[in-house]
Every structure is written in structure tokens, then in C-alpha cells.
């Protein structure tokens, strides 16, 4: 038992941890998308009360730091009688925090659909629901994907925080390895490579989604674009920064 473990010995542990990391990432991303859509739509409501609530929620979750929100959920809420298991804490904290950033992307993209499209939908006597589902959203979605992809990757990169709330994610497994006397340098490098691969996989998926969404609009860009790294052009970057400028942060990142 006194043997010093090698990274190779730890493969099984890392895979166990990876499963948790992936689970929280996927669930967190789904919650994030749902919250981003709800808050994003609320933020462009005509009713000032609805808009006000959305703004307060968005600015609150963007302005207070993610690790603090996570700790509040994990350590604070049980004292108020609300108890989530660690996995739910992680999913909720990531979903709310990045959902608040994402809502600005949703709002900005819907606003970026040209005005004549709205007017044409009205002129064709489409109901408000039909206008959104058949005209506005199909055009807004391709606009959202690049910025959303940045947020997905930010979320993925935040998952090592789970280590701090006693969830056995891949980071925790790596820490166990270090504490067992293993070579920390190699392990951290391996960990970074794993995260790098996951981040690239997320980008690939987003690129595919973008190609699909654009094909629906008749703007087929060719499949080669799927493999590109996401690199906002200066103009695109400026727009992202504009969409996320209020509390500053991951909206424009990456």
C-alpha cells in the first residue's frame, strides 16, 4: 500500500471523476440555457415590473462571484432549512451564474434580428407566438451560438470548483493522487489536457449546431467550418463585449 501511485494507476479513478464532471457540465448547461432563455425574454418585456425583476436577478448573479454563490448554496442554505445535495448545488450555481450571462446573449441576439423581419411577420398576420417560433428564433439562434459556446466552455472550466463542495469530480481525484504522494506535475498536466480536449469537443458541438441552424436558414457554410477553433473577429468581439458589458465578464471571454 505504500507504493507511490503513477498516473496510469489512477486511470480508473480519473474516469469515475470524469463521469461526475461531465454529468454536472451537461446538467448545468441545460439549466443555464433554460434560465438564459427565460431571463433573456423577461429582460425585453414591455412591462417594467417584469423587466425590472429580470435586470435585478441578472445583475445580482453576474455581480456576485461564482465561488461565493456556490458556497452560499452549499454551506449557507442548509442553515436556512433548504438542503441540496452537492451535485444539485453545483448544477444550480453554474446554471444560475452562467444563465445570467447567457440571458444577455439571448436578449442581444433577438434584438439583432432585423426590424423588417418583425414587421413582415406582423404584416403576414402571424400571431405573437408564431412570429417568435417561425421567424425570430430561427434567425436569432445562429447569432447566439458563438457567444453561448464561450459560456459553455466557461462553465466547463468552472467545474473544478466542485472539489470544494466535496463532490468526487475529476479535480478531486487528481487531488487524492497528489495527497497519495503521486507526481503532481504530471497529474495536473494530464488534467489540463483532459479539460482542453473537453473544451474542444464543446466547440465542435457548437460549430455543428451552428451549421445546422444556418442550413435551416439556407446559409449552408460548408462542413469545414465545424473544425475551426472559435475565434471571434474584432467586430464580433466588440458586439459580445457590448452584450455583456454591464457586470463585465465571461460573455466576451474566449
Amino acid at each position, binding site marked *: 500500500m505504500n507504493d507511490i501511485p503513477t498516473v496510469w494507476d489512477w486511470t480508473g479513478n480519473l474516469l469515475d471523476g470524469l463521469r461526475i464532471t461531465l454529468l454536472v457540465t451537461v446538467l448545468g448547461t441545460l439549466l443555464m440555457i433554460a434560465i438564459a432563455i427565460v431571463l433573456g425574454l423577461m429582460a425585453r418585456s414591455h412591462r417594467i415590473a417584469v423587466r425590472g425583476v429580470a435586470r435585478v436577478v441578472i445583475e445580482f448573479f453576474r455581480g456576485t462571484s461564482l465561488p461565493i454563490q456556490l*458556497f452560499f448554496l452549499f454551506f449557507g442554505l442548509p*442553515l436556512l432549512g433548504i438542503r441540496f445535495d452537492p451535485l444539485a448545488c453545483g448544477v444550480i450555481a453554474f446554471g444560475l451564474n452562467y444563465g445570467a450571462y447567457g440571458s444577455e446573449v439571448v436578449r442581444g441576439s433577438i434584438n439583432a434580428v432585423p426590424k423588417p423581419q418583425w414587421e413582415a411577420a406582423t404584416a403576414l398576420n402571424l400571431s405573437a407566438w408564431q412570429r417568435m417560433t417561425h421567424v425570430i428564433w430561427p434567425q436569432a439562434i445562429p447569432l447566439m451560438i458563438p457567444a453561448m459556446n464561450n459560456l459553455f466552455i466557461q462553465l466547463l472550466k468552472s467545474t473544478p470548483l466542485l472539489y470544494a463542495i466535496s463532490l468526487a469530480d475529476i*479535480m478531486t481525484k487528481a487531488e487524492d493522487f497528489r495527497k497519495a504522494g503521486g*507526481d*503532481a506535475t504530471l497529474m495536473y498536466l494530464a488534467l489540463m489536457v483532459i*479539460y482542453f480536449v473537453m473544451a474542444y469537443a464543446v466547440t465542435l458541438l457548437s460549430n455543428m449546431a451552428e451549421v445546422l441552424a444556418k442550413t435551416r436558414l439556407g446559409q449552408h457554410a460548408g462542413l469545414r467550418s465545424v473544425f475551426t477553433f472559435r475565434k471571434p473577429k474584432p467586430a464580433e468581439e466588440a458586439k459580445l463585449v457590448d452584450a455583456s458589458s454591464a457586470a463585465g*465578464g465571461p460573455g466576451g471571454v474566449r
Partner: protein
Amino acid sequence: MNFDLDYAGEILPDLLMAFVQYTLVATLLGIAVAAVLGLLFAVIRQLRIPILTQLLTAFIEFVRSTPLLVQLFFLFYALPGMGVTLSPMMAGVTGLGVHYACYMADVYRSGIDAVPRGQWEASVALQLPPLATWQRVVLPQAIRNVLPSLGNYAIAMFKETPFLAFITVPELLHQAQESGANTYEYVEPFALAGLIFLAASYPTALLLRRLERRLEAR
């Protein structure tokens, strides 16, 4: 259980102290490192020095795609094994600075790309040496235009300083946890910590937005 105002008042001085002494100091030093290093990265990439540029691009892409927390642990726990021992604060500032330098490099690049070609040509026509071209002509225009974006990254970095708590820097989150551990009352310390962050980041963000509008209006 309710929010205990007396208790909150009691721990507030400690929290503010930790905030000023560690969080703010780490943020400012981190911004300084990121701003200088990011500019250096951007200029090196712009100069297109053969192998160096490709290596740097790969490095930047890698750092941006891997978690800050893992990078901090690498600096703090793995480097001593290679003979480099950093204090927690040093490791934290280096981690934050390098991580955000990789983001800021792209911001600087977009700023440099936006400087009109004519400015470069005029510098050549005036026989300005390369150093003066960069220092006096290109960078002042490039940096002014991207100041708001740089500021946004600075705020993002500020909100990631709680990560330093995990490498034992006694900053705000660490202090909040400590205060909570003394009394088993975690609601107030974390709520206060969050509010302190909000109170610092939101006004800064509003100021940046105003700066952005003013620059656009020109």
C-alpha cells in the same frame, strides 16, 4: 433562522480587511501582470517571429481552454517539485495574470488590427524606427480603443479572485469561511462576501459602459 444583523456587523470589519488586503491587492497586481504580458503576447504575434509565434498561439489557446483552478494548483503544488517555490499570493497573482493575459492578448490584437494601414505607412514614410512606430503611433491608438474590453476582463478577473482561497490566500472567501466556521453561521458571511463583490463590480461596470459610449461618440 433569520439573517442576524448584529452578527453580520460583527464580522464585517474582518471581511472588509481581507477584501482590501488580499482581494484588491491580488486583483490590482493581476491586472498589471495581465495587461503587460498580454500586450507582449500581442506584439510578438503581430511581429510574426517564425516558431515563437506558433508556440505562443498554442500556449494561449491551451491556457484559455483549461481551468484557472487547475493552473493555480499547478503553480502552487507542482512547481515546488521542480525547484520553484512561490508564496500563495505570488502563485495566485501569476496564475490570474497569465490566464487573463491570454484573453487580453486577443483584445490587444483586435485593437492593433483596427489601426488604419495608413498609420503604418506614414510611419515608414517619416522614417520612424520600428520601436517609435509601436510606441508613439500604433499602441496609443490601439490601446485607447480597446480600453473598455480590457476593463471588462479586469472585472472578470476580480470576480475570480475567490479561487485564490483554494491555494490558501486568506482573501475574502477564505475569511468568510473562517468566520462561518467559528460560529457555524454560514449565511451571513457568504451573503456579505457576495454583496461586497457586487458593490465593487457593479459601479465599475457602469463606469466602463460610460467610457465605452464616450469612446464610441468620438
